[in-house]
């Protein structure tokens, strides 16, 4: 498969850091985050303000505004990063935008008051890469996110996208590529952690006149958004990974199955496919090498189970998204009974880097059997939430305290839920656990898709487990009995515990049911659904016991087990609570004390949310 190659992609520069310029060095760049989070905070208006100012100053030749993908530090949005040094301005509004652009146009000296600070009276941190949230990161998957304009193929090419594809197509055999990926130690980032190289080998060895190479972008775990960030921030990295994989396994067509809840990702991906086809980087006879690969998009219609690969296949074929027993595995018989390889977005975004830098460079990152980096969505009760890409093997404590900056509230951190609804809850006493496949499995959690939700003492672990179980129970497709009925029974038991009507023996029953659902379900949804309940029982058994025995919720989160109280010192006797109480449980007259009758109160919380003085609390 060698042949003349058009000089489309520029030679690969070294992996750029986030602070590096995307286009020619002569152009001074103002990078405004246009990821979903920052757009929600008004970043597009800020980008427009910059553009207007640059146009008015007639500085368009030496300066440009780049609307980039997600920078990662979503809670600090809208995020702006300026110039070669990557001067970082968090939480930019229109006023500060004016001051930033003035400084950029006049001497480019950073505006000190607007720089990031760890604490209000801490020293300013000017460079984006020096912010503690970023300092420990190593960006492979997110190498271009926040650097390039994701809607510009030229930007992607200037940062080295599609160089690996050309190298692969012109200088390597499919077997060599598979060997490189296998040797890199890359494991599927969608949840199961299966060796990517091995999967490709199985697909390559499968017999079939037509093979499919698909991308699973049905990121459904609540609390995880790394795939969305990659699709929105660097869609070409995913397409390039798909094309290399297709060449390796011998596929000629494929689908990207994207969640319908990600309209921006779908739009950018669609444009990226059209641009890549127009530049002969996808489609027929790619770069004149004779290799052809066609990619189409299929939008999901809202079913969590479609992240499971056999369910995904059913959905692409136009059926109800229900999984089927394996074997045969999709690599043997998948989409329309043809050999089909399905990889997750993040997995594919690693491929070009591995081809460019070699297996050894990748496997030297990470620890044990968990090689390379992993992107985590760090959220919950934490000071700096957002996306982080770190070498595998960092401990939970390093993630929570060093990168996330610790608890965002006055309460201490209680636990982290790792791996979404399929994952497990780890208590603070286990925060020295390294985040890698084997170590997490040993303590009952999983790396999963990489959601990392931090909770503090105000979270009731029973109610938290119930939340995840309610999600998976609702999303159970209903095909197999253990998952359909088992999760339902489990949810009923957990619910009654949170409602104060739990019975002795409920905990043991949950464990028995949980183990049965885990071992007997058809697919990974049921196979992992009991994890949150089982791990919270394992580490927070006393909270379950308190709910059942003492009818007490120590976090005051379970409505049935807590009461509302009027704090006399804060109460201004306005009477708003009494007026809004739907069951007339509140007594009192203006200018007098107000009281809530806990026997009548239905704990709806309306009084608490209506009180303008925060004088009503839950105890």
């Amino acid at each position, binding site marked *: 498969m060698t042949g003349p190659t058009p000089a489309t992609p520029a030679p690969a520069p070294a992996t750029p850091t986030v602070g590096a310029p995307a286009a020619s060095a002569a152009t001074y760049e103002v990078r405004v985050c246009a990821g979903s989070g920052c757009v929600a905070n008004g970043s597009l208006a800020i980008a427009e303000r910059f553009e207007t100012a640059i146009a008015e100053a007639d500085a368009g030749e030496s300066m440009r505004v780049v609307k980039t993908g997600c920078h990662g530090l979503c809670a600090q949005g809208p995020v702006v990063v300026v110039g070669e040094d990557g001067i970082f301005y968090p939480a930019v509004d229109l006023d500060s935008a004016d001051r930033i652009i003035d400084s950029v146009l006049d001497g480019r000296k950073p505006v000190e008051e607007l720089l990031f600070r760890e604490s209000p009276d801490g020293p300013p941190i000017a460079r984006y890469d020096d912010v503690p949230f970023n300092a420990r990161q190593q960006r492979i998957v997110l190498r271009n996110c926040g650097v390039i304009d994701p809607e510009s193929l030229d930007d992607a090419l200037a940062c080295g996208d599609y160089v690996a594809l050309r190298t692969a197509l012109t200088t390597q055999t499919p077997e060599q590529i598979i060997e490189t990926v296998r040797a890199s130690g890359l494991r599927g980032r969608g949840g199961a952690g299966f060796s990517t190289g091995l999967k490709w080998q199985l697909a390559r060895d499968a017999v079939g006149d037509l093979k499919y190479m698909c991308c699973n972008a049905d990121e459904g775990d609540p609390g995880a958004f790394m795939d969305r960030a990659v699709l929105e921030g660097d869609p070409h990295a995913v397409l390039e990974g798909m094309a290399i994989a297709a060449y390796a396994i011998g596929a000629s067509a494929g689908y990207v199955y994207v969640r319908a809840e990600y309209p921006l990702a779908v739009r950018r991906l669609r444009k990226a496919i059209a641009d890549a086809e127009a530049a002969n980087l996808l489609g027929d006879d790619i770069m004149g090498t004779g290799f052809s690969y066609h990619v189409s998009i299929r939008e999901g219609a809202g079913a969590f189970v479609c992240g499971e690969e056999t369910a995904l296949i059913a959905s692409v074929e136009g059926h109800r998204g229900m999984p089927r027993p394996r074997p045969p595995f999709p690599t043997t018989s998948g989409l329309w009974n043809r050999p089909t390889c399905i990889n997750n977005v993040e997995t594919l975004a690693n491929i070009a880097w591995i081809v460019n830098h070699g297996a050894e460079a990748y496997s030297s990152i990470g620890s044990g059997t968990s090689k390379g980096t992993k992107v985590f969505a760090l*959220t919950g009760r934490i000071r700096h939430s957002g996306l982080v890409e770190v070498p595998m093997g960092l401990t939970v404590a390093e993630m929570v305290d060093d990168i996330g900056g610790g608890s965002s509230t006055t309460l201490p951190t209680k636990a982290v839920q790792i791996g979404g609804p399929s994952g497990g809850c780890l208590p603070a006493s286990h925060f020295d656990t390294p985040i890698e496949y084997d170590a997490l499995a040993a303590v009952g959690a999983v790396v999963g898709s990489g959601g990392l939700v931090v909770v503090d003492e105000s979270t009731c672990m029973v109610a938290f487990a119930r939340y995840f179980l309610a999600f998976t129970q609702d999303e159970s497709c209903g095909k197999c009995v253990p998952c359909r009925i088992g999760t339902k029974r489990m949810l009923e038991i957990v619910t009654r515990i949170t409602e104060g009507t739990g019975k002795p023996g409920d905990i043991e029953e949950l464990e028995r049911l949980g183990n049965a659902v885990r071992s007997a379900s058809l697919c990974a949804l049921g196979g992992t659904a009991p994890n949150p309940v089982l791990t919270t029982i394992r580490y927070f058994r006393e909270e379950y016991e308190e709910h059942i025995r003492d009818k007490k919720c120590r976090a005051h989160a379970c409505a049935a087990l807590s009461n509302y109280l009027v704090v006399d010192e804060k109460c201004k006797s306005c009477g708003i609570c009494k007026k809004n109480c739907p069951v007339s449980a509140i007594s009192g007259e203006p200018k007098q004390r107000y009281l809530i009758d806990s026997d009548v109160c239905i704990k709806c919380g309306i009084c*608490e949310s209506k009180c303008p003085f925060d004088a009503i609390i839950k105890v």
Partner: protein
Amino acid sequence: MTEHTCSCAKEAEAVDLTLLGPVLAAHAHDQGALIPVLQQAQEVYGYLPREVLREVAEQRETPFSEVYGVATFYSQFYLEPRGRTIVRICHGTACHVAGAPEVTSAIVDELGVRVGETADDLSFTVEAVACVGCCGLAPVVVTGEQVHGQMTPLAARKLAKQLRREATQ
């Protein structure tokens, strides 16, 4: 499973099936395209009336039971008319931990529309949705395409009031 109550009265106005022609034609030769067809049909009609499902089944030579099965399996297909403004309250983990349940009860109380339901005058539909992917802004409420981050029960009430005002204008 969502319960679908009788909606004969609502569907009394005839559904113009000619609008479906281009959608069906665009996917005529794609055997797996039932879901894209239903998605685009829903864009045209705002929801999936029974007549549309029947027409899709007939034109694509697929059993009605299968079309109905697909339409009821996925949460983004709606068999009932929807409100002009869709208020989506994110119940992703981050939002849940940050107070989505309280935000939800505030909005439900203020709008008088329960979760998963549509106001009688079709002004609003209130939905609880799984993660919208803006976890950094939790808790999040999405009205139409507009994302509102860092909601509190009080802010949610303000938002709901504003929506009600806009709806009556």
